[in-house]
């Protein structure tokens, strides 16, 4: 997928663990891991809002567009 998530970078910047974030925003670690590993197919605005609020960032800091190389 051409969209990559930089959730781990933002977590490191805020010195927060995935478990802590999951407790704060009320989303299971399993789901956050899917998001972190890039397996997610979509993200709800409400989830994005909660993550941005807790990590003090914008959606652009979490999501990034990296064009895929054509084989």
């Amino acid at each position, binding site marked *: 997928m051409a969209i990559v998530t930089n959730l781990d970078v933002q977590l490191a910047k805020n010195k927060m663990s995935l478990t802590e974030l999951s407790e704060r925003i009320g*989303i299971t670690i399993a*789901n*956050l891991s899917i998001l972190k590993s890039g397996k997610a*197919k*979509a*993200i709800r605005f409400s989830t994005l809002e909660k993550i941005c609020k807790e990590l003090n960032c914008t959606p652009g800091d979490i999501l990034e567009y990296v064009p895929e190389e054509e084989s």
Partner: protein
Amino acid sequence: MENRKLLVISKSIINIFWVLQILFVLLLVVYTLLLVFHVDFINTDILRGFKIHFKSIDFIQPLMHDGQAYKMKLTNGEGRLHADSLNQNFIYFRILAAFIDSVMYLLIFYFLRKILKNLTSDNFFIPENGKLIKNIGYSIIALAIVPEVIHYFTDKMISRSISIENVVIKSEFHFDYQTILLGIIVFVISIVFLRGVELKEEQDLTI
């Protein structure tokens, strides 16, 4: 809870059909072996006979009623033709058609059993179920076409090589449109189901 009960009942019924079908295939194999090897301890002549469809059978003797003679005939029926010292190789084509028929049923029961196994372990919308439903669709269509094609060619051979006075043997292709339609319906359902699986996966991976 109600659905779970239905699932268990369906599973039991399919399991019974599955065992009966396996027994039928085994019987068919035994029957064929008896005919091929002409075993002594069983009078295989009573087994020798093959199914034919007839257009009409004219009765030579007229029916007498109130002093009047009525000409009679039978039309559009089927029966088993037994004849001594007649090359009855047609019977093997009939057995082949029955064998293909049974194998298709076995396949359908096999796929159904797998689906029911998945359903009872709470795996509903998984790609495997979609593929199994699709395979059932293909099997039903094959079930409607393949044995009928064999029957058609056997009927043709029988009607060409055997001529019985007053009897017209039928050799027409029987297009089983009901079964084909059923197969197509199952096939379409499988496509809808597979799309449902895709949507479920997407939903599951939406955070």
